[in-house]
């Protein structure tokens, strides 16, 4: 079988596996957040931290809990890295430098996992396990519970209470993430990923050179890293490293893991609003955009004539591609990691063809909604669905309603603020970096490619993706600090507007559907949401895309 055929077979198997998980996993997620029954371990934990599990929180209290938890997490993670040389199993590595430690702390708490360091040469085992991996669970849980709180905005009425953050996050970790991470970690171990506490070994190669072989509890980190849409990697080369991603089978499971929960969450949404077709409509939007991204990147990476002379001669854009997986698996991974907010890579995105890289950038710029990051994709697409019913209302005179709630000026202000936050953060940071001497010093490629690298970096950080084009010196203190702020504001500011919107919806009395209500379960609505997403993103980022990847590709 040709590698292209194998790539499409992998895609077909992914669709089948994700479709098989959609109903059971989505139903289970809905059950976790709607049942009144606590597990004994959860009751013990609530008692330990002094939580009244029956006390629902107003949206702003829910948010303040998130902010307080995240601020403490950043400070703890920062201290852990700075003091790692005092920790056991540090492999003789020194404390992480202050700017890298802060950027990394902000990165992991925001579910971004942008890494300005090589994991195996910077982080000891305890810093990774008790700091970074813990945040891979917690930041993913925070994203999902924000989505659940937003869904409660539709399911509740005449209240401003959206649930209890501490209860939601505890249930999410104990009932969903830990069990799946155990199963997934075992799959990777069976596939050959390493899981040990060995000290680094120095060996002599056949040619007489010395080589250091790293170890570590990699498999257990790898699964939650991907399933939680965290990204990055235990090793600097991420999923291109044979200890992290040993073979095509583990590669397929890794791609499956990063799509699993985001694609099942719309089912949980449908279940919670008691109309499964609503969830089906949103997952259809996600599938259309994901499939288009896979097809687009695959086309440009595999098709000769669009990547320059070397690509033509090689019949594929093979530079920067891990040869164990090949160009099709690289394209499938690149599309899947950028439409979710994962950011782990199995090939260098900087080596993608200009248009292939442009699609990856466009995927991230979409705001991580197709299917998006764990939870973040769900609340993102709900905001865009609200924008769509409003636009439909303006176009054809329908009453702007969604899931029985009126979309009034207040809701639209929240939606507009949500949507505008990320472009403001991304384009302002990119503008400052390009327009100042200190920012220009770290842009190693001139012209359109350099511009793409800068915009991609900030789009990736603000959207909590974490993948990077190489060629930008983001380890410079300027980029470490700027990036830390971009990640913090890119993560939490939209969540403020999303939960504010949810609070506003929850206070409303539901309105029954009438003849003037737009049916949001039809293919027409699916098409409209896709159109609104493409037009909004296209208009917002068109100048940057035109001057970056388009200019480079057409050169």
């Amino acid at each position: 079988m040709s590698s292209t055929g194998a790539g499409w077979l992998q895609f077909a198997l992914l669709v089948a596996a994700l479709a098989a998980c959609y109903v059971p996993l989505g139903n289970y997620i809905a059950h976790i957040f709607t049942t009144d029954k606590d597990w004994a371990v959860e009751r013990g934990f609530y008692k330990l931290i002094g939580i009244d599990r029956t006390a629902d929180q107003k949206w702003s209290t829910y948010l303040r809990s998130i902010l307080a938890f995240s601020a403490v997490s950043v400070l703890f993670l920062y201290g852990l890295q700075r003091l790692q040389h005092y920790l056991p199993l540090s492999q003789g590595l020194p404390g992480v430098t202050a700017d890298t430690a802060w950027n990394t702390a902000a990165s992991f708490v925001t579910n971004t996992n942008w890494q300005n360091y090589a994991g195996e040469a910077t982080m000891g085992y305890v810093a990774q396990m008790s700091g970074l991996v813990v945040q891979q669970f917690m930041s993913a849980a925070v994203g999902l519970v924000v989505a659940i709180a937003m869904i409660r905005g539709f399911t509740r009425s005449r209240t401003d209470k959206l649930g209890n953050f501490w209860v939601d996050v505890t249930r999410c970790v104990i009932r969903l993430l830990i069990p799946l991470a155990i199963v997934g970690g075992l799959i990777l171990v069976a596939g050959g990923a390493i899981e040990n506490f060995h000290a680094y070994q120095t060996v002599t190669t056949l040619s007489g050179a010395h080589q250091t072989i790293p170890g570590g509890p990699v498999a257990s980190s790898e699964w939650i890293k991907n399933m939680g849409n965290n990204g990055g990697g235990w090793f600097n080369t991420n999923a291109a490293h044979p200890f992290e991603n040993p073979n095509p089978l583990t590669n397929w499971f890794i791609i499956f893991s990063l799509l699993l929960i985001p694609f099942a969450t719309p089912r949980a949404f449908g279940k919670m609003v008691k109309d499964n077709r609503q969830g089906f409509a949103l997952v259809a939007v996600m599938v259309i955009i994901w499939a288009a991204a896979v097809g687009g990147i695959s086309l440009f990476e595999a098709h000769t004539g669009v990547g320059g002379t070397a690509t033509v001669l090689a019949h594929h854009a093979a530079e920067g591609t891990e040869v164990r997986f090949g160009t099709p698996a690289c394209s499938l991974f690149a599309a899947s990691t950028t439409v979710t907010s994962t950011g782990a890579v199995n090939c260098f995105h900087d080596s993608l063809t200009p248009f292939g890289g442009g699609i990856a950038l466009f995927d991230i710029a979409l705001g991580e909604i197709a299917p998006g990051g764990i939870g973040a994709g769900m609340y993102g697409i709900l905001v865009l669905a609200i924008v769509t019913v409003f636009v439909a209302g303006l176009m054809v005179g329908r009453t702007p309603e969604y899931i029985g709630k009126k979309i009034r000026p207040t809701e639209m202000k929240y939606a507009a603020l949500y949507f505008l936050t990320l472009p403001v953060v991304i384009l302002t940071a990119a503008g400052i970096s390009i327009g100042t001497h200190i920012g220009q010093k770290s842009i190693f490629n001139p012209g359109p490619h350099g511009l793409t690298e800068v915009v991609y970096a900030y789009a990736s950080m603000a959207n909590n993706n974490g993948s990077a084009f190489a060629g930008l010196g983001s380890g410079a203190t300027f980029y470490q600090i700027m990036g830390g702020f971009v990640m913090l504001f890119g993560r939490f500011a939209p969540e403020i507007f999303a939960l504010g919107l949810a609070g506003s919806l929850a206070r409303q009395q539901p309105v029954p559907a009438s003849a003037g209500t737009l049916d949001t379960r039809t293919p027409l609505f699916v098409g409209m949401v896709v159109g609104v997403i493409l037009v909004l993103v296209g208009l917002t980022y068109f100048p940057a895309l035109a001057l970056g990847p388009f200019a480079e590709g057409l050169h």
Partner: protein
Amino acid sequence: MWGWDLGFIAMTIGAFGVLWLLVKGVERFER
């Protein structure tokens, strides 16, 4: 190096302080 540490701790508190104020601002907008 302690200067850098204090600076980054202050930046963390400052960033979350701004977000905290944003929540407060949105609450005021609601009323």
